[in-house]
């Protein structure tokens, strides 16, 4: 599929249709607005709410290992299962879920290319409102892989040194500081602009008009040849709250095969609030 470096983590809508209901394959829809899931989802898919189920509800953090185990086990997922995630907003939140599954060591997790919008617009694909009642299982997370996640100290180091790629995946107006966040967003920051040294490569650069990923040669031309991402360096992707950057993290790590790629989920809502942190505008 598309000559990607790790094609095994991406499945097509047709593949999902052909494998519906097969044992060992678990579908998870991950949305920011679960109205979409409630209105209709792929048969057998469980629904995760990005805001309330993948985020710690007390401190600002991803859910703990224990909470992840409870969530996955409650959804009937075993560590040996193939988990296929898809979701709204072009898979941003599904990509975030994919990242979370990888952090907690799930072996076989895959993203459905194009997300729910692609499935929705294909005439031969069905949706259902039927409730899913998975049989809970005991889920034991694998080794936790925090190498996939960037924190402020690493981001500051990346900004200062030339040995990292810093990729800002927000819209051009957010990058320049013309706006702090897209209109209507409640999560925002005290300051607008970007992390010094970051390259502006909006997330949507990676997708075709139908919402699926562009082929590897096109992605390589954009990210590496045109925008100057150096495949030999470590890379950190960020956005506003870490969901759009999960999408680009997936592109860089799995479709282009860059070795060390981290998602900075604190993103601009953390960095733009840091006292005395350097910021560039325009």
């Amino acid at each position, binding site marked *: 599929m598309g000559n990607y470096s790790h094609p095994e983590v991406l499945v097509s809508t047709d593949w999902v249709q052909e494998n519906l209901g097969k044992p060992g394959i678990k579908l998870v829809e991950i949305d920011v607005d679960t109205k*979409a899931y409630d209105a209709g989802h792929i048969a057998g898919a469980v629904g995760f709410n990005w805001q309330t189920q993948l985020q710690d509800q007390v401190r600002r953090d991803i859910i703990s290992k224990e909470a992840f185990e409870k969530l996955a086990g409650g959804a009937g997922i075993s560590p040996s299962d193939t988990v296929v995630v898809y979701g709204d907003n072009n898979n941003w939140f599904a990509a975030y879920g994919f990242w979370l599954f990888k952090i907690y060591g799930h072996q076989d997790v895959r993203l459905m290319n194009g997300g729910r919008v692609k499935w929705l617009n294909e005439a031969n694909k069905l949706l259902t409102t039927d409730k899913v009642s998975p049989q809970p299982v005991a889920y034991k997370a694998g080794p936790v892989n925090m190498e996939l996640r960037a924190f402020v100290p690493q981001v500051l180091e990346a900004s200062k040194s030339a040995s990292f790629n810093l990729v800002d995946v927000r819209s051009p107006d957010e990058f320049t500081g013309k706006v702090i966040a897209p209109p209507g967003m409640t999560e925002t920051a005290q300051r607008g602009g970007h992390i010094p040294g970051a390259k502006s490569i909006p997330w949507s650069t990676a997708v075709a008009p139908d*919402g699926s990923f562009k082929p590897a040669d096109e992605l390589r031309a954009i990210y590496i040849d045109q925008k100057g991402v150096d495949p030999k360096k470590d890379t950190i992707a960020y956005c506003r709250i870490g969901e759009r950057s999960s999408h680009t993290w997936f592109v860089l790590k799995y479709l282009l095969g860059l070795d060390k790629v981290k998602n900075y989920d604190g993103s601009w809502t953390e960095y733009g609030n840091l006292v005395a942190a350097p910021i560039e505008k325009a």
Partner: protein
Amino acid sequence: MNHEKRVYNDIFEMLPNEENPSPMVRINRTGLSPEFRLFAKLEWLNPFGSVKDRAAWEMLRDLEERKELGNGRGIVEPTSGNTGISLAAMARTRGYHMRAVVPNKVPLEKKVLLKIAGADLDVISDELCPAPGLGDGSINLAKTHAKASRDRYAMPNQYENDKNVEAHFRTTGPEIWRQTDGQVTHLFVSLGTCGTVVGTSKFLRSKNPNVKVIAVQPTEGHDVPGLRNVTQLGVSKLFDSSLIDDILEVDFRLAYTRALELCQTEGLLAGPSSGLIYEGAREIIMRDKVGLGVMIFADNIFKYTSNMMKHIPGLAAGTQA
């Protein structure tokens, strides 16, 4: 039905057509060019309050004729308000349920009106940095209902339904041609689903290929409900640039100031999209100097008082004891 006495057996007989056109009123105080006569076609005088009565009726009748409605099956439609209000009122009167999926930024007045008209409401955030051309959240949610609950919902889909265009080819175009005695030289419209511009333009051009069609659109990042900037037009499958001579981009804030001006100088209680069109028409009058122009004024100001307060400084002052 008696159009002369305006006595009707039911509300649907009042829907506009060549025999019962929506009124056109001359704009008298532009102060720009006496050789350019400018008229506003007042679509809010349609029975359900907007230009969308035309497309809603055409789409509803089509669904009825194809036996898509009834036996528990109603309508789901993405709407910024007016189509939903027309559809909901029509559907409920004819015995069908209706679900309207609206973007959050639609004014509160319209959301409440949708509920008053009998619609179930889904309000969703459409603002999350959407990628161009991928459709927006309200359209996708409506499509989801239609796909997952086929027994409950038919979706007219005004963004892709040719009946939206046909409605204007069948009514708006012929009305204007007759009301101007074939003298119309300029048509001024805004862009949303593009049904109005495509249908009306097609008809007028079939009568006179020289009629100029001017579409007025708000600047990107605008706050004028119901309209789309050209960068947002990917969602409409009806858009046909060959039927439009000029697309003017106007600072969206002028939609509000010109709407206020129309109220206070012409006595026309026109909504902000009409204000935007009026600004565009003024630019063309200064350019072309001579002509007979018709502006499609989609709806009136009553649904936009909260937006007017937001964009006209001082309007809210003195409204509390």
